[in-house]
């Protein structure tokens, strides 16, 4: 038991040191993923990274009430900024029990950004291991995480808007 505990403690300490220069995952490069959308088409993050888009990855679920506040807000921002290279990928954490409610919910709110299904929670497990809902990751034009946020309350609107517009203000790199 003591060897195992020592190993775990050493590993935890190394993990903490490994990324001590960044907080909230900010600054780390976002790895690509591919998930099906509501029509079964495979959607990847890679094209957005290649275009140097600012991307919000929004983890949500039909049973999550704060998500019903955050995602309509992201839809407004998406309509406002999509021509500036702004994209939203909404990843539903609904399981089989509530997956049939995803499409009506999307229709009810009129979301036009891609809504993806993570049926076996592979992407959630990697990028949102606490399975927090809502949980948002803003990726900057350099493909690195610019901001992360768990939950959504009224005053989060201004902070999220500021972070997204700050990321959009940065120019794309010359190819």
């Amino acid at each position, binding site marked *: 038991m003591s060897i195992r505990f020592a190993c775990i403690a050493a590993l935890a300490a190394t993990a903490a040191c490994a990324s001590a220069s960044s907080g909230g995952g900010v600054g780390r490069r976002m790895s690509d993923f591919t998930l099906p959308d509501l029509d079964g088409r495979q959607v990847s993050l890679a094209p957005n990274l290649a275009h140097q888009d600012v991307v919000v990855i929004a983890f949500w679920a039909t049973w999550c009430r704060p998500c019903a506040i955050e995602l309509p807000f992201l839809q407004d921002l998406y309509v406002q900024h999509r021509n500036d290279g702004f994209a939203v990928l909404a990843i539903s954490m609904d*399981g089989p029990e509530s997956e049939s409610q995803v499409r009506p919910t999307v229709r009810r709110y009129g979301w036009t950004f891609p809504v993806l299904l993570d049926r076996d929670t592979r992407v959630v497990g*990697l990028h949102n291991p606490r399975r927090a809902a809502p949980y948002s990751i803003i990726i900057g034009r350099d493909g690195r995480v610019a901001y992360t946020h768990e939950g959504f309350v009224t005053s989060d609107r201004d902070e999220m808007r500021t972070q997204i517009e700050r990321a959009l203000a940065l120019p794309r790199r010359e190819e």
Partner: protein
Amino acid sequence: MRTVLALQAALAIASTAEAQEVPGPSVSVTETLLGERHGFNQDRRADNDDYWDVKNRLNLSVAGGAYTGALRIDTITYASPPDETYVNDYRFERVSLRVDGELVSVTAGDFYVLFGHGIALSLRKIDELGLDSTLRGARLDLHLPGRWETTIVAGTTNVGNVDEVNRRLVEDPRDQIVGGRTETRIGERGSVGLHAVATAPRESSTVEGEDRLGAAGVDVAVTNLPGGFAAHAEADVQWRRVGGVDPGLGDRAHRPFALWGDLSWAQGPLTLTVELKDYYDFQPLQGSRDPLTGIYYAYSQPPSIERTDQQVPDNRNIYGARMRADFRIPGTEHALFANYMQSRTRNRDLDEDGYVLEDVGAHHHGYGGGELRLGGGRTVFQGSGGYRVEQEIASGDVLRRMWHAEADLTMPLFGPHGLHLSWIHQSWSQKNPVDGDARLEYDKGTAIVEWDYASRLAASLGFEYDDEVDQPGVRKLFQFGDVRFIASPSLTVRALVGNQRGGLKCVNGVCRTFPPFAGARAELIVRY
């Protein structure tokens, strides 16, 4: 030990790469440290009072090129535990390595997996119930992007070892599971999938022989059709050997099956959805028995067509339908929705001609609500309510009925201040199992007032009530205070003091009884 050293080396390299701004692996660390003081929770049990615990969960993932590695370390340490069944534990709970190629992906270690709609196989994390099972073994994914996907899995089951409900240690059941699934796209409008899965529980449910369970099925998705239609359907059959004997064979053969489907139609502001299910003697993919609860581990979860948190009387021998209408009021952001669900449970009996099915219970549940959005969506009010009846068909008696209401208001106050009010309520009436003429009546609910400031601070006061157990010494009213402080994107601190109600919590027909909480809780969430 070698694994640890290799991972440490990888992390050290990652650290150096990041410091020098050289493109390297992407390292993600999420750590949750939870310390709790459990006081006297007044649930008539002494074995869960007056102790401390500290629980830590470290999630680490490293992605670089085609490789993705993930690790989770869980630890729990007790102080002044009530008895010797509370055991300190430190372990590598999840370890996995995935390699992605153009046509092939291979995963070794722990992974979640779901086939189709979860009827045959569903190993997922259900945080609300503290359930967290993975398959520890190997997974092979073959794919022609956008055209064809095949998945083959084999391994043994690995559960979260510190039970979230009662804080005791459970060992992994290590039930063997093997399965495969293939799915192909049909143009731009749909897909067809086939799957099969089999399990061999490590422990049999009887002493006579071994248990074996298996299921196979087909699922179809047709989406994006003209006229705004979309549909999904799945059909599965099941076979099982209990104690070495197949109860489905013999001169009165029967084969358990499951049928599920949904059809939605969207036109303008209106979306209609119909969901159907028909499960005949279809058991969840069953593993060994959980030594703490005495309940068998289940590795599949057929959709229930009920509200997500509804207690479902029986999801094995049941058929029914749910209809849902969603309507967005034109020219506004306001929306309305309505649901009606009806289902019937049935008994399977033997008579001279074989198996006979008889409807025994009928369930009706209607609910609906609306959402009002004002000020460009800054103020949102959501309200809903409904009524449910569960009836015994033979006698016509109402076994249980319940009405429920929910209200939720989010609004800005002044400057960076915001307000959130929420209330959920259920009133139950059920037939007294001891005295059939009398009825048990009880209410349960939660009301919360929350204030938030500048996306940094949120403080709430909660009030709860639950008089289901109407006995002396059992607490019926609960109060708590909760503060959440986001110090930075990497650090969130949360603290709770007071009492919270326990009781039955359900997700998709799976229920667990949680003890009430009394004491204090502090949580530290760190992300790197």
